[in-house]
């Protein structure tokens, strides 16, 4: 007999097997509630993290512009010497 035909016959028989019965509704609802509570608890942290990120970016913008305008304090000492002749 063809192997695949045998498998199909097995499948036909298998489809009529008795199935287990159980109820998952209470577990599912409990799980969804728990995740929602966790999400709600995370909200203040997310807000604080966002606030920190905004503050950090302002500081970075200011410090980049400050860095660009900063001059080496030693330049003040060397600058007059560069202009004066040595001999």
């Amino acid at each position, binding site marked *: 007999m063809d192997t695949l035909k045998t498998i199909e*016959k097995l499948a036909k028989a*298998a489809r*009529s097997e008795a*199935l287990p019965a159980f109820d998952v509704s209470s577990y599912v609802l409990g799980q969804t509630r728990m995740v929602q509570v966790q999400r709600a608890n995370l909200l203040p942290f997310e807000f604080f993290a966002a606030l920190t990120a905004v503050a950090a970016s302002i500081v970075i913008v200011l410090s980049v512009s400050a860095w660009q305008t900063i001059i080496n304090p030693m330049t003040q000492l060397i600058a007059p010497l560069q202009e004066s002749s040595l001999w």
Partner: protein
Amino acid sequence: MSIYKTVAGSYNIAVENLDNNDICDSLAGDSKAFERLVIRYQPRIIRLMWRFCRDRQTCERLVQDVFVEAYFSLKTYKAKAPFEHWLSRIASRVGYRHFKEQDKEKQTLPLPDFDIAAADSQQAVEPEKAAELLYWLLAKLPATDRLALTLVYLEDCSIKDVAVKTGWSAPAVKMRLSRARKKLKEIAEKEKISERFEWIP
């Protein structure tokens, strides 16, 4: 909130009123409405997940995963197809993940000495044992082939149904099924399935 989606005004499919109301209420935060959906659809999902595992505890876990996943993606349900189709698509995905986990752990059961003949003369084959044997054979295949053949053999799905449940295109399903059948045939021939169960009417 409207859960209907009109694609270029071509069609507008409504799900059954009951599902429709419960989905809307669930989205509005009514947990009892989702509980009603779970109770309504769990027998069908249990049946489907039982095809993916033959252990009651694992089946229970998988069914729970399906409904939890459905709850958190309920917003994405567009009512283009009945709710049951959408749910069985999630279930197939969960089942496929389970197959992949089994592949990683290489959980293939040893071939038991299958005596699938029914004790009573009413039925030729014991359905549970036939399912067990088929499950064992399908477990030898890679996860994708196993998924396609599980849906076809154990759920009696057509190519179109498999395409809906897996999200693959119909030609892809057709090709996958033909390759999977070829592999299954080789495995079954190695195990001399047709000789051992030749007597099945």
